[in-house]
């Protein structure tokens, strides 16, 4: 044995410059374990009480499939709609100075701060056939918004929008203006500059915002159930179906739906993540 090995410290764990790792990590694991890990493990285990065939059968129910289509399709539509609107808000609050800019900036976070049930109630009142927005829309186009899939998408859009703004905004703010100036000196028009220089630089952030908004919208419950009308096969969302199954004491079926939702949305987020990584690599 060499001399250096003989005087090596005996404890395998590295000593820390700052104290408190043991205590804080202990608290963290207790907190995380009791609140998040163990309950989510229960979710991962419970469905299999039905057996694999039972889980498949529970998920293949037409009503369940329709609810998944509504939740995932609606979230997709809402997240897509949040792209142009979110971009507009981010652009206006980072690039222009105008009276009320700070108020607009603060308002964008409203969906984060407003209790979901309040948002649901408010949107229902607004888009009902006699509502401030629902009435003119119905008069002009004949479309009903509240108590239809369109209502679901409106509520999900409300929920997803701030994610898009708040992910694009910091990137837009940090975008060096000189690249835009360089594009201008090279003869590009303002629109060409925005389309060829600004938007590609924002693409990864837009994808992140899209993913965050989508993930939140898929699971949204409070904002949706008031405006959705909750008609099975038409405007019923997957989270509501979990509640329905629980009320029927079909715990395993409820867990199967919950687990499927989680797995599906994580898979989608993973795909978005991979796509985003490729985009970033393209940007160098």
């Amino acid at each position, binding site marked *: 044995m060499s001399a250096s090995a003989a005087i090596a410290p005996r404890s395998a764990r590295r000593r820390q410059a700052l104290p408190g*790792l043991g205590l804080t990590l202990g608290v963290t694991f207790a907190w995380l374990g009791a609140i998040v890990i163990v309950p989510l493990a229960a979710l991962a285990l419970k469905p299999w009480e039905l057996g694999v065939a039972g889980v498949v059968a529970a998920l293949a129910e037409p009503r369940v499939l329709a609810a998944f289509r509504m939740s995932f399709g609606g979230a997709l539509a809402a997240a897509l709609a949040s792209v142009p609107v979110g971009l507009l808000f981010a652009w206006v609050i980072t690039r222009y100075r105008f009276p009320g800019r700070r108020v607009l900036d603060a308002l964008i976070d409203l969906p*984060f701060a*407003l*209790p979901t049930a309040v948002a649901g*109630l*408010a949107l229902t009142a607004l888009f009902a056939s006699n509502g401030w927005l629902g009435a003119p829309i119905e008069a002009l186009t004949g479309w009903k918004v509240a108590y239809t899939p369109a209502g679901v998408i409106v509520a999900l859009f409300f929920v997803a929008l701030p994610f898009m703004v*708040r992910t694009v905004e910091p990137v837009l703010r940090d975008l060096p203006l000189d690249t835009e100036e360089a594009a201008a000196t090279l003869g590009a028009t303002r629109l060409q500059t925005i389309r060829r220089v600004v938007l590609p630089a924002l693409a990864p952030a837009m994808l992140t915002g899209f993913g965050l908004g989508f993930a939140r919208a898929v699971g949204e419950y409070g904002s949706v159930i008031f405006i959705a009308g909750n008609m099975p096969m038409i405007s019923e969302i997957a989270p509501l179906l979990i509640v329905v199954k629980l009320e029927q004491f079909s715990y395993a079926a409820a867990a199967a739906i919950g687990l499927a939702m989680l797995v599906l949305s994580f898979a989608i987020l993973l795909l978005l993540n991979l796509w985003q990584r490729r985009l970033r690599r393209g940007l160098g």
Partner: protein
Amino acid sequence: MSAATRDPAPARIALVLLAAALAVAVFLLPLAAVLAEALRRGWEPAWSAISDPDSLAAIRLTLLVASISVPVNTVGGVAAAWAIAKCDFAGKRLLTTLIELPFSVSPVISGLVYVLLFGAQGYLGPWLRAQGIEIIFALPGLVLATVFVTFPFVARTLIPLMQEQGREEEEAAATLGAGGWQIFRRVTLPNVKWALLAGVLLCNARAMGEFGAVSVVSGHIRGQTNTMPLHVEILYNEYMFVGAFAVAALLALLGVVTLAAKTLLEMLTSRRIGEHV
């Protein structure tokens, strides 16, 4: 901004007006609608709906649930932020991901997991019932579900800030003879107090306003396990619209005040707090 990066005036004005119109439609009209519906028949019915015993019980329960959940998540969040930002260990990224996990879980699933554990057919339900302990359809269930959905708020606001501030000040304090608690209280805490306050406020707003998760574990027993958002739903489903919107307006006020406080704190610290939450 140079001439080359300035958009033409008509475009600027049009974009600002469009954004303003959309902001009014998306953010202000819903708020106004809640207020208008609540006051449809004047202040009197709205006030009596709020001062109704069931409403008052809901308000008390909401405050009680928040007053347990928020401290739990504050202690956990501060501990996690200290470990992640000020110490070295393997698996930090995994830990951060796990802490943020509740944000990407549907509120209904956040309630469901506790029913699966503690419900009548849950893993621990029958045993707990034998011991006479009730969790689901009772206060503990409401608290657990609320802690789950508000889990990441404090940690999330603190971790990036504490990482950005580095460890030099804490290390300096250590070389000057300060112990762990002294370092935290005298050096770290003063540097993060506003962000911590903002995180606590956001956590509190969500805790008081949470609907989906508590809905699943509550059982909706009026006067007993009904929080304010659940009370709104019950009133609405019973066509007591003025009452529903009156209580909703109270909750909306909570949201607006939280938002104002957060904006104020952001101005105070000149940085954004708690994005994507």
